[in-house]
């Protein structure tokens, strides 16, 4: 072959590459969109009505579970809340040989809580639920597909939920306070004190109440059946006010609590179970994560003091069931399974008249109207506990003891005991079940929050 031919062949070779190169289908990369789900950007602007409805349903759902829809491992929001607050308040122990930190670390055997451990999962779950409500609100405000009355309804609804989720985080964080300005995820506002946090939550509930009043006769979405009776803007206000009353007693603003009760579904002689509930269902819905089979080796058991301290015949002891054999784990024994929910689809009460009657009783005690308080406490004692009427001293200290006791049994394993004892500075009265246990007054600020800084 001649030199010229050689050169030609090189040129030819390069030409081949160039041609192949210039062939678009060979070298073009296509854009690959998310094949697995809807992107956030598709709802933030110009959302359709059905997208808004789906976000509202998502908000109801997130209230139940946070982001983790798998029951059982204690990281979904409501479940984790009940388990963690229940252990800190010595209501229950979570017995699981695979994870003894529920029993030893959370009960303070190591003297300190780990800000990076799984039991901080509630924090993100509630935050995620709050963010779902916030996305609903943002999407509703940035679309022309719904009218202004419907927008007001959604604002009032979502702000109520936002406040509700923040309240749960604050309950766990106590003296640490929480961040209340969360509009920009890259620049969240600072932590504010416990009192300031409560004020912010209360204000948001009040704002939501006003927005709901502008929301017309119905929401543009359907609420799940558990909210039957509270599923229009005006009836949803009753739920909003029930939460507000709970916040008000945390603020020790007894007068405000009474006002809130009056706008809620509080009824001293009404059914104690009145109030919205979370519903559950089989896959693809979510089962009640707080339900458990009896006599399991992995079990949430009642703290033995719950049985020991009960008045004889208290019907509320039916919230626990004696095990066929006691569970023993790293020195803790449990003889009673928590059996609050008879099935894995039993609804979970969010806030019910029973608690509102107790809030009323507490206001009455604090405002010195002791007879009214006794009357309210007797409603609880007789209807909830099947117990005789109160026969103790009618003094403020004695009635506070009685109130806390009734709250303990009426609201067992619903995340109240620890918070009640904390707000009455009685954490030191909680039982020490094992040498070396610590009673904590707040959950640690999660590691990621600490790392983020102020």
């Amino acid at each position, binding site marked *: 072959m001649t030199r010229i031919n050689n050169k030609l*062949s090189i040129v030819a070779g390069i030409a081949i590459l160039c041609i192949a190169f210039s062939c678009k289908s060979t070298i073009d990369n296509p854009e*690959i969109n998310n094949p697995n789900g809807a992107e956030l950007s598709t709802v933030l602007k110009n959302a359709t009505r059905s997208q808004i409805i789906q976000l509202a349903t998502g908000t109801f759902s997130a209230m139940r579970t946070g982001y983790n829809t798998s029951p059982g491992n204690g990281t979904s929001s409501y479940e984790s809340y009940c388990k963690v607050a229940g252990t800190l308040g010595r209501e229950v122990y979570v017995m699981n*040989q695979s994870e003894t930190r529920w029993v030893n670390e959370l009960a303070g055997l190591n003297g300190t809580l780990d800000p990076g451990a799984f039991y901080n999962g509630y924090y*993100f779950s509630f935050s995620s639920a709050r963010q779902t409500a916030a996305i609903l609100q943002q999407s509703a405000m940035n679309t022309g597909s719904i009218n202004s009355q419907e927008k007001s309804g959604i604002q009032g609804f979502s702000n109520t939920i936002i406040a509700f989720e923040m309240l749960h985080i604050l309950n766990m964080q106590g003296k640490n306070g929480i961040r209340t300005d969360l509009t920009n995820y890259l620049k969240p506002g600072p932590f504010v004190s416990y009192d300031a946090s409560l004020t912010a939550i209360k204000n948001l509930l009040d704002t939501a109440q006003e927005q709901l009043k502008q929301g017309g006769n119905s929401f543009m979405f359907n609420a799940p059946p558990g909210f039957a009776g509270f599923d229009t803007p005006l009836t949803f206000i009753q739920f909003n006010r029930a939460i507000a009353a709970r916040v008000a007693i945390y603020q020790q603003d007894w007068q405000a609590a009474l006002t809130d009760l009056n706008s809620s579904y509080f009824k001293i002689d009404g059914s104690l179970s009145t109030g919205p509930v979370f519903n559950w269902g089989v896959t*693809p819905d979510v089962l009640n994560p707080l339900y458990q089979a009896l006599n399991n080796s992995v079990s949430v058991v009642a703290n033995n003091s719950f049985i020991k301290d009960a008045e004889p015949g208290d019907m509320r002891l039916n919230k626990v069931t004696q095990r066929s054999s*006691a569970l023993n784990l790293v020195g803790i024994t449990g003889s009673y399974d928590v059996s609050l929910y008879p099935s894995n689809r039993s609804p979970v009460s969010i806030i019910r008249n029973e608690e509102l009657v107790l809030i009323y009783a507490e206001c009455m005690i604090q405002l010195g109207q002791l007879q009214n308080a006794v009357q309210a406490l007797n409603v609880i004692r007789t209807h909830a506990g099947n117990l005789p009427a109160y026969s103790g001293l009618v003094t403020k200290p004695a009635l506070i003891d009685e109130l806390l006791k009734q709250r303990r049994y009426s609201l067992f394993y619903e995340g109240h005991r620890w918070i009640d004892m904390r707000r009455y500075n009685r954490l030191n009265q909680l039982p020490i079940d094992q040498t070396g246990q610590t009673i904590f007054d707040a959950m640690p600020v999660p590691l990621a929050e600490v790392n983020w800084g102020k």
Partner: protein
Amino acid sequence: MKTLLIPTIIKSVFRKIYKGIFSAHQSIIAIACMIMFLNPANVFAQTVLTGTVTSSKGEILTGVNIHVIGTKTGTTSDSTGNYKLMLPAKENMINFSLIGYKTQQLKPGSSPVFNVILDPAGHVLTEVVITSGLATSIKRSNAANAIVSLSAARLTGTTTPSTVDAAFSGKIVGATITQMSGAPGGGVSMQLRGISSITSSSQPLFIMDGVILNNSSFDAGRGTNAFTGANSISKGQDNLANRLADINAADIESVEVLKGSSAAAIYGTLANAGVVIITTKKGFNGPTKINFTQDIAAISATKLLPYGSWDEDKIKAFYSDPAQQASEIAAYQQAKSAGQIYNYPKEIYGRTALGTYSQLGLSGGSENTRFYISGGYNHEDGLTKNTGFKRATVRANINHNVNDRWDVQFNSNYINNVTDRGWENNDNNGVDIGTNLTSLPSYAQIHRLADGTYPVNPYYAENPFHVIDAFINRETTNRFIESFTTNYSIVKNDHHQLKASFQGGLDYLLTEAKLYAPDDAQSQINAISGYPGASRFTNDRSINTNFQLALVNTLEGKDFTNKTSAGLVRFNQNLVVNAVQGEGLEMGQMNPVNAAVRSNYSYSQQIINTGAFLQHELNWKDRVIATAALRIDKNTTNTSYNSFYPFPKGAVAVNLTKFDFWKTDAINQLKLRAAYGQTGGPAAFGSNFSQLNPTVYNNNLGLTAPITIGNDKIKYEIASEIEYGADMGFFNNAITLEVTLYDKKVKNLLQPFTLAPSVGYSGITGYPIGDLQNKGLEISLGATPVNRPDFRWNTILNYWFNRSKITRLIIPPSAAGPNLGALYGFNELRVGQSPTEFVGTPLKPDGTLTKYGDAQPKFQMTSYNKIDFLKHFEFSFLLHWNFRSYVSNFTRFQLDQGGQSPDWMVPTHLDGSGNIMPGPAIPTGLARQIGLNAGYFIESASYLKLREAALNYSFSKEHLQRLFGNAVKGLKVGVSGNNLFTITKYTGLDPEVSAFGQTSVGSNYDIVSAPYTKRFLFHLGVEF
């Protein structure tokens, strides 16, 4: 299918161009788009030389490269070891080389028959040809990178491996290879030169005959709540096997390992963690040769976890409740008097399991067509009954020369792999066998009853015998790996060659996972869902396709050789996962459609990478070899999915001994080399997505907030590496020394950018959070301390270490990888610290966690020795010393909780942190639960392992002739073993462990793995 368009395009282009140029070749070229192989025959030949090549043991050597120095003339020995060569001139030296043997340069005498004997080579600098680019190769003595090249003899010659990646252990200087658990069927993590990513797994790219292999580990869903509930942290903890387990090691001819970016730069975005190039066997012309090997293995546990003995005092100490104490003591007394005290771990894991490894190969061919056809069947039983690994493979490799310019190669491989992994590792529902055994006292009575039912295990959540007998955790993979290569020599003369080559292929695999837990199992009866009986069927379908089109131009001058290559590459990866799950099964039914609650899952992803490369090599008389290259890539995981990003490379090697001034005969080789290169690591698929989560509430569809927010400016991680070193050969390579230093910097490490959790998003999915650096040293010393005809000892000593360090971080110091909390320790990202450093409680006064030690070892050292003696015997062994890697041993905690620790009853005043407790002494097992900190969990895991050892006997040609006439051409028998002993102070099952799978950080966790195995094999190899 874009890849399929290419041949047509090229074909038409070739046709057009050549019409005008070489009309004589028109008809050939018209078909020709693929290619290659320089035809060994040379038209200028004058005399014919023939001969046979054998080893010093008398074995026939096939495939020996025979090359007349200074010419293009060459050939290979055929299946009978014979060769035929046209000698251009009698003055030429002839080079005989074969991987695994010492290269010989000989001058034939006047006789036309020239028989050659090659000695096995133990040292590292054997003269083999290795990869220098995507379409070019280079003599090893001219390479500027330290590329590990493993022959079949090194890979599988000592002992037959379970899986091919297990066979790499201890053989690659610079690699950290971890067998992640003791379960049968693979599960090996391989990291080259430290870690190259935080989020991705840092596993190298595996390429077999040009096909990019899928090495995923598919999650079967065992960690879902219907089964073990372990999934809340990481999906890898399902005790997964990576798909390299499908590859039949017996088909492999050689393996090359490009460890760092400087060697792998030409692979661009795909090569941040290095590249492993696997080449399978080829046929040779000559009579058809039939190879049959059969190995039989006895497999047993290397070690079992301690199992506690019980008595009344211990029961009293263990249980605080008096009623429980009484009932347990009664149970204990009853068991004792009935002689029913058992050692359950021994009963379950104590057996000797059987392994069989069969391989049948046919190879041969004519001058123009050569084939290698093989079938292999491996069957390994697991230690636990009903577990095991069965793999059948068939392969056909066909080479054909269409004419002296054009060759075609087609490799086809089918694999069927069925693995029953068993039920082990992390677990939150108390299902797994090991987890149950840690809390099962020896006086428990849980054997299956006569009526076929299983007693309730009162000590935890499941009866392990029920799991063994009835639970299923099976993965079935069917896989095709097809590769096609063709080369066409456009120009082919002594001083100028221009070659076009096309290489493409596909790797199609379908892994079907089946999980089943029967409805009458204890853990199912107590299922939180309330629906006993669960099954889950998962299909993972993955298709990798890739092709490469290249031109290589070689110009050979008097002093300089210039080699230029350029080409196009494209890679497409397509994964679809579908799963159906049923809970609440009809009695005895396995199909999820028979369940009360049915759920499903579907996921898909596609990644496309398109690139081009240009490389130039300049060789000055083998004295100075310089390479410059540029690869450009675009990858769909980048936000700018259609923009090219550059990956440069530059390298130089100087062979001082080739210069005229070199007079020191004792040093026959001294090469100094330096190489620089860049590679990329693509972001995980979906890193720019912010996906709303679907949820169903009361039959209505809802949407909830994304968990993480995508990064809308996502781009690959980028690594740049400089590597330099020296290769030395002394006394004609009787001693060789290879020393390499490297400095690899990985920039823009992608990691979830953790947001303040208050905001409701946990983080930004992939965010460039900082940089890390890996520095290390690799030394390979090869020697032949004794070299006598009846006793030859070859030895290779490898020593290496890697130090990783975070050099920049824009986020606060934070946990990386799976994180069980500071109590068990986790790997932490912190500037100036290794990203694989374990930190944990207690907090130090300055607010940082206590440092405990690095998961990466301080150094590793291996010693490979091969002793050929008495002509027919070969004794070889491989020792591996891993110094000071650390493991977080959660298993230890489980043993304490279950009362199984050997020292459980020893009275102590010290708590878990070693502080003195007031009051009387209490049992150690209880004391350690108090005041616990991470120091208890994080253990040093140094070890010395005898990885492989073998004694083989090869029959010589003459001997076989006497015994069998011409019927048998080769016969080898032997015994071998692997993991025969491990010396370690580590208290868990094995210091090599990774509960969370192939992860870069957070790998060394021990959470009740399956026991590890040692194998003792008997080997028979026959060649017909």
